[in-house]
């Protein structure tokens, strides 16, 4: 617990609190009761049982009472250390000494009922998909967006069929086909161009695809199947839908929550409302007479019901149908009426918020099938549920655990899930900002490097092993990415290339991460070390204390590492930096542009160090590491890294960081993830299909 006094959560730990209007003041405080004070000022960071949350665990306390009293007296609460001294510090210390460190999960809580404002990303995808049928006329599906489907019907029973070809490095195990009723299928997004491939039966027998007449010699006396992919651009018969609102403000989120999905901050300000209304008008106007093709042959009420269900992601009530039908009376022309209905629906709260409110069922609320359809579709596909999924909801197929699980599993093979997981990876790793950095590497290349990381992570989450995230040796690359990494470009863009040996550390070896966590003119071991702790291990740090000072000045006679030596020479600095700096030093073999380097200003680079307490502050482990490969290998087997990924996915699915009570739910997911030997596909489904996702807050929360 040596770091307990300094390693505390980020500021803003204090949660909730009554909104204060003009003139309200904080409650006056009488004599201090240790338990009460702890609950009010300490528990949000250290946990109500002292188990540690964003701040370190305190219980069971291993040091002396005097040390604890002194620590509280001098440094706590972090945000206001003068607030609790003397008798207060003693009272709180005595309370801490009674804590067990065990969170009581005997009666797990329920997540709150929520309305979730569509994010800009979700909104754009939703609008695009809603109007795709008429925007593209009868144009064929676009294989570059929707994927290419392989289909194989064998004449004998097989255990496995894989697709291996130039698009996946001829990997015989990367792309498994799935069997249903004797038919094996696989849908994948394959880049535009001409590709060669074979089918691999039971992991051993390589055959050309019997469905494909075009072949090329395989160099072994046999034949490869030829696949030609051409992206279609959406056809010319449809209307062009005006852009979705581009002027929507960015989402806000708390610092410790990495995703754009933060439900509690989703508010519609005047700017939002103006943009929504303006976009709705633009889109409706652009529809022209093709609006009638949205629901062919429907009368006004039928149009409201059918298109309304698509927009609101649930059936409309009769009252709603009547309301929208009445609205249309403003117009006389039938298509003008339809356009006005579309316009109104596109800015309706029922469209803008996705509902996780539920229906009352046995004292709590249960998300209904339609709400589950939306939850699954947005979490995995990043867009609005399809008609087919809404139909499934109407048949009650999403009212059971198994039904939800089946629907989620089916989505994993949808190429849009791959793209959504790329967004998850981008936000999880904090790569959103990569376009805004001042770097020598061009913007286009930086974006490509990020895309490579996104493709890598989504590929691992769908087909790979957890270990690969931190030990993987290859990365999907195009020519620009390959050039940055100094390797030969793959014959097919975005197929995997082997990285130089010093980068065999999964995302830690990626230039996107290395240049994101750096300054414009030098590396930042601190930013990189904190990245590993916060993003990959879910361990939060306090900001540096006031006396910390900034980045040491560049010194022509010293390496970056040497300039930061003070961090470990000063006991005060070391109390935190012992956990950070060595992790960052492991990256010193990569400069601020993400290029490999072996020396800095002619001085040799030292990347060795110690990974201390990887599974939590105070767990007393020291892992010696030589470079990022060692760091990656340690993360790959660290329970904290596994728990962190499952926690991040939980946060993504729920659209919020977990409250303390919800830690019990997060732990359930983490435990199951470990128990499943880190089955990533199962994790993706488990969080959404778990009963605790579908059950929401009790009746008491409802206003009369």
């Amino acid at each position, binding site marked *: 617990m040596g770091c307990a006094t300094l390693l505390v959560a980020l500021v803003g730990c204090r949660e909730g609190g009554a909104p204060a209007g003009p003139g309200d003041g904080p409650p006056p405080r009488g004599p201090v009761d240790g338990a009460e004070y702890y609950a009010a000022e300490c528990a949000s960071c250290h946990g109500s049982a002292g188990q540690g949350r964003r701040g370190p665990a305190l219980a069971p306390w291993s040091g002396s009472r005097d040390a604890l009293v002194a620590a509280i007296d001098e440094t706590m609460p972090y945000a206001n250390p003068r607030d609790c001294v003397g008798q207060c510090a003693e009272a709180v210390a005595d309370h801490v000494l009674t804590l067990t460190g065990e969170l009581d999960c005997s009666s797990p809580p329920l997540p709150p009922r929520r309305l979730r404002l569509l994010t800009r990303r979700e909104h754009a995808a939703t609008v695009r998909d809603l109007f795709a049928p008429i925007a593209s006329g009868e144009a064929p599906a676009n294989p570059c967006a929707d994927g290419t489907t392989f289909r194989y019907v064998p004449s004998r029973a097989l255990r496995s069929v894989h697709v291996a070809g130039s698009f996946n490095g001829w990997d015989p195990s990367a792309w498994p086909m799935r069997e249903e009723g004797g038919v094996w299928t696989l849908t994948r997004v394959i880049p535009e161009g001409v590709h060669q491939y074979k089918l691999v039966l039971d992991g051993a027998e390589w055959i050309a695809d019997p469905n494909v007449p075009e072949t090329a010699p395989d160099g072994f006396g046999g034949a490869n199947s030829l696949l030609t992919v051409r992206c279609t651009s959406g056809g010319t018969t449809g209307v062009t839908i005006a852009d979705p609102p581009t002027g929507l*403000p960015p989402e806000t989120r708390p610092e410790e929550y990495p995703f754009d999905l933060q439900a509690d901050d989703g508010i519609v300000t005047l700017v939002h409302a103006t943009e929504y209304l303006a976009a709705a008008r633009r889109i409706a106007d652009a529809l022209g007479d093709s609006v009638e093709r949205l629901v062919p042959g429907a009368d006004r009420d039928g149009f409201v019901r059918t298109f309304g269900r698509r927009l609101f992601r649930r059936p409309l009530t009769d009252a709603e149908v009547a309301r929208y039908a009445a609205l249309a009376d403003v117009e006389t022309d039938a298509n003008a009426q339809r356009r006005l209905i579309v316009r109104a629906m596109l800015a309706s*709260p029922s469209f803008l918020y996705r509902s996780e409110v539920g229906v009352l069922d046995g004292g709590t609320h249960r998300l209904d099938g339609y709400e589950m359809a939306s939850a699954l579709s947005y979490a995995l596909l990043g867009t609005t549920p399809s008609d087919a999924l809404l139909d499934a909801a109407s048949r009650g197929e999403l009212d059971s655990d198994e039904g939800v699980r089946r629907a989620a599993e089916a989505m994993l093979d949808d190429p849009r899930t791959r793209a959504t997981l790329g967004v998850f990876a981008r936000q999880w790793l904090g790569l959103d900002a990569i376009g805004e950095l001042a770097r020598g590497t061009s913007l286009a290349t930086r974006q490509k490097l990020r895309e490579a990381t996104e493709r890598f992570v989504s590929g691992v989450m769908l087909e790979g092993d957890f270990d690969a995230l931190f030990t993987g040796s290859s990365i999907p690359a195009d020519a620009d990415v390959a050039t940055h990494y100094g390797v030969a470009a793959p014959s097919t863009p975005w197929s995997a290339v082997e990285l130089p040996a010093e980068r065999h550390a999964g995302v830690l070896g990626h230039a996107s991460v290395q240049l994101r966590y750096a300054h414009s003119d030098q590396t930042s071991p601190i930013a990189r070390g904190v990245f590993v702790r916060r993003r990959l291990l879910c361990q939060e740090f306090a900001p540096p204390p006031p*006396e910390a000072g900034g980045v040491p000045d560049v010194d022509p006679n010293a390496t970056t590492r040497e300039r930061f030596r003070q961090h470990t020479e000063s006991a005060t600095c070391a109390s935190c930096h012992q956990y950070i700096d060595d992790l960052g030093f492991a990256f010193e073999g990569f400069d601020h542009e993400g290029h490999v380097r072996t020396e800095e200003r002619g001085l040799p680079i030292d990347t060795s160090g110690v990974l201390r307490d990887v599974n939590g502050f105070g767990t007393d482990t020291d892992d010696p590491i030589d470079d990022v490969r060692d760091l990656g290998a340690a993360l790959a087997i660290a329970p904290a890294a596994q728990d962190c990924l499952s926690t991040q996915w939980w946060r993504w699915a729920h659209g919020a960081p977990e409250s303390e009570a919800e830690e019990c739910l997060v732990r359930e997911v983490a435990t199951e993830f470990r128990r499943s030997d880190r089955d990533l596909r199962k994790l993706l489904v488990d969080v959404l299909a778990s009963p605790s996702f579908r059950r929401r807050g009790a009746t008491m929360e409802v206003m009369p």
Partner: protein
Amino acid sequence: MGAAIAAPFTTLLRPDLACASGHGARRVIFFYFPDGVAGRSQDGDASLWEARGSGGRLVLSEQLEPLAGFEDRCVFVNGLQMGGTDEGSHPGGAKKLLTNVDGGNGQSLDQFLASTVGRSAPFPHLYLGAQATVNGASGDKFVSYPTAGTPTPPEDDPRRAFSRLFDGTIVAPTPESPGGDPATELELRRQRSVLDVHLAELTELSSRLGRAEKRKLDVHLESLRTIERGLSRMDMPPVDPPVSSASCEDPRLAYDVSDETRFEAAVFGRILDAQMDVMVQAMACGLTRVGVIQGGHHTSELIMSHIPGSEMYDPGYAMRSHQASHYGARHDRSNRNFVDYLAQRRWWVAKYRALLERLAAIPEGDGTMLDHTLVLLCTEVSDGNTHSHRDMPFVLAGNAGGTIATGRVMETSGRRHGDLLAAIATAMGEPLAGFGWDSREALPGLITG
């Protein structure tokens, strides 16, 4: 052009506003800059921020020096504090700055004023930023809180802000036919009908939800009501008649920063200048009464040494705002961080002055817009190195139609800054006896008339 602006009505003054033009402020702008100032140092060097003097002789500090010539239009408020909670932190300060509630768990003053005295304007609130949302900025980087606990980001794009204000995105009757045109009439009926549906839906939805979700929907509801009021105002004289008809009829935006370069430090000053132009024209046109301009965000990575033409310009050297703010324990002029930090802070003050100049250049009544506009200069910590929340650096400009005596220093020794916020509200015609926590009265002595 000229959304919701009816030129023929420029001469109509509502009697209450005609009165207000002589007493109190008609508008307010909060001008925020990040990362504090060179205040009292960690080792106790005296603050290099505070203006000094009384009895007619006012001495600006070296950081305030760019205000020379404008000191008569300012009140230099020294000694306010923001409370002990989260002291030592940038985000904690940003959350308290305009809310005066720990953790931002209160509505901010700008939003409070938008919902009261600003409510009658077409845009009750205008929040403009310069590179404020960059770098994946989390919510704690923003200073405006529409509702307790939930911040909102500023508009960082001057073009978008400009077109939203002046292009009439929602309703665009031409100045020649502010009503009476059948096509416009039909469009207005559509908009009213659509809004009616949404208002009814929101009300129903709200009734089914718990308090937290209701709070969010209340913000939504108020946004729609603002738009609705705008629609019903179409045929009426503007509540705030334009001060400058040119601002309405021929608003200008001189801004040539490309989307590709808008994150670069080299263009930062141009973005900020453009946002000040937008703000002043919007106010001159009567479109808004409450504005916030946010330059950057706290713990800023903005490389201020790359701002061309600035005192600290050095293209070969990267000195960031936050980096410079950690200049060390002493005010050491042999330390480049410290020297750069002073220069950076002067640069911010010079931008604040440029805003005052814009306002002072537009006649209003028998004076200028500055006489009827309060402009608060603020940042989230006092000394950038210690992150102290005591002796906060506030400067208030504008004499509120003669009700605030300017050209002086106010020593407030340890009062909560909510008292200043309450006094600003009071000067804006919304009298408050305190704002936020530990604030029990509007700052006495500020309002003199």
